């Protein structure tokens, strides 16, 4: 009985981990597609989004000023990507599990672009960096 329970537990543990990595793979694939569609991080930028856990770069396509969005955490991992080109919202996200986000960008470059659009953001980035150093 105990042995059977242990086998079931081990099986479930394996399945749970498999589901986790497959889900992360799917999300990372979607994020990579949006990243590739964006092209160079600094071109067609239309805006930014500043949130506590991550910041986003927003890109225009044609008339749509919010067509694509890449959200990057402090380590440079893209934790969320959004595609609004169809008029609806399609998103891929690993917000809840950022350690598994494997599409990366240069965080310093992201901050440079945000500061270009929002000069006061430079002070916030500097403060965050000082806090991280402490």
């Amino acid at each position: 009985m105990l042995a059977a329970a242990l086998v079931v537990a081990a099986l479930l543990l394996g399945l749970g981990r498999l589901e986790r990595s497959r889900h992360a793979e799917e999300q990372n694939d979607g994020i990579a597609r949006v990243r590739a569609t964006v092209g160079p991080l600094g071109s067609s930028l239309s805006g930014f989004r500043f949130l506590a856990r991550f910041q986003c770069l927003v890109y225009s396509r044609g008339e749509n000023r919010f067509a694509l969005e890449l959200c990057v955490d402090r380590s440079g991992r893209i934790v969320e990507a959004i595609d609004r080109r169809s008029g609806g919202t399609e998103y891929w996200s690993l917000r809840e599990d950022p350690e598994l986000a494997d599409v990366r960008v240069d965080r310093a470059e992201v901050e440079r672009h945000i500061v270009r659009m929002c000069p006061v953001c430079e002070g916030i980035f500097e403060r965050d960096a000082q806090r991280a150093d402490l």
Partner: protein
Amino acid sequence: MPVAARLPSIERAVQPVISATILLFVLASGSIQSWIPLARRLRWLALLGLLVLAVAWAWQRRGPQVGLAAFTAAGAFVGLAALSIGWSVDPRDTLGHTVAFAVVLVAAGALAWAAAGRPEAAGRVLDAVVAGAALVALGGLLVLLFRHDRAVQAATPALPTRYQGLGGGPNTATMLLAVALPAAAHVAIDTGRAFRRAIGTVVAVGLLASIVASGSRGALVAGFAGLAAWAALREPGTRRTLASLGAVAALGLLCVAASSLPDPDPGAPAVEVAADPNPPPVRAVPPFVDANMVLRLQDDVGHPPPGVGVEDPGRTLTGSSGRTEAWAGAVGQAAGRPLLGFGFGTEEQVFVDRYVGFNSGVPENSYVGLALELGALGLVLFLGLVAALLVPVVRARSSDARTRRLTAACAGALVAGLVLGVFQSYLYAPGNNATAALWISAFLLIALHARPDGAAAR
């Protein structure tokens, strides 16, 4: 000291601890903000105290046995929750939630074990749940008297004035009141002495009035679903049952009409919801835009094109307040890890509110939330637990009047709780104010159908 002499003292001590635990859980997310930090600490102490007392009581009364199906089902569910630490997006949170929920289930199970085969003891446990809810309703009235601004949520252009009493919002304490309503109705109508019935009537009316004044549609539907289950089970005869159900339906319609009376205030200032609780002071240099000012992520799905204002449909009796869109989105998220989910207790981290018209950190549906946390298997195990608890109800009609009526009250509480689960994410949330009351009442069902001679009910 002989066991027989110790029994009543533990049994007596259990009652106030149950009531105090229920009250503390409400205060921990209540309307009096200065009490919240202390209540948050005390509620876990009270729950642990209840666990110790319940287990001690069950240990003393270990002769009679209850059916083990519900305990096995509860064990399987908690086992899966514990295993999910291995694939959770936040193992620490999963561990904490699993332990806390296990404490709630073990306490509820131990109370049932201790009261097994003794309807009078089960009745006293249920009385304690009603007393806890009565304290919450009474506390709400006191807040209304002395801190009116905290007891009432002011009207907005979209929402009418809503009573919240002791709860942190109109939908908070009313969850507990809805779960306790069938048990209060039982005390009001089905118990022996006139004085007890009078007290029960006052409490039942107080709970119902609080729910109606809160305008909480989920609590109202759940409370009346529970009352209907209680009415359907308390009498053996079909004619009496139909008459009871008719009375519940008529009262329900009256309450729905009363709860729709207050109107929104078009002149009131609109409530602005910040994109972030502590938004940094950022400002975009034209032609660039700060996306939070135009298209917030929490309004992304269903938002009209930028520049077009969002039309607020207001709050109607049958409207979902954006829930249906949020449920669909959360089900889509759950499909990402369909079998075993993202880990027990992680619903708040995993669910992302992207839906215009919806404003909550959880999908506000326990079944969708459970699918997110523990996947399809978790949902199946949970429903297995509910089925194991409801099995005794099938045999209730052939029981003596007292057992049948107590069974009806407990089944009513369980039905109210399950229906409430359609509107709120809470059934498995140990910190929620209705969770302990629900599981204590639900486990009493198996206590009522155990045999005092030691033979387990199957």
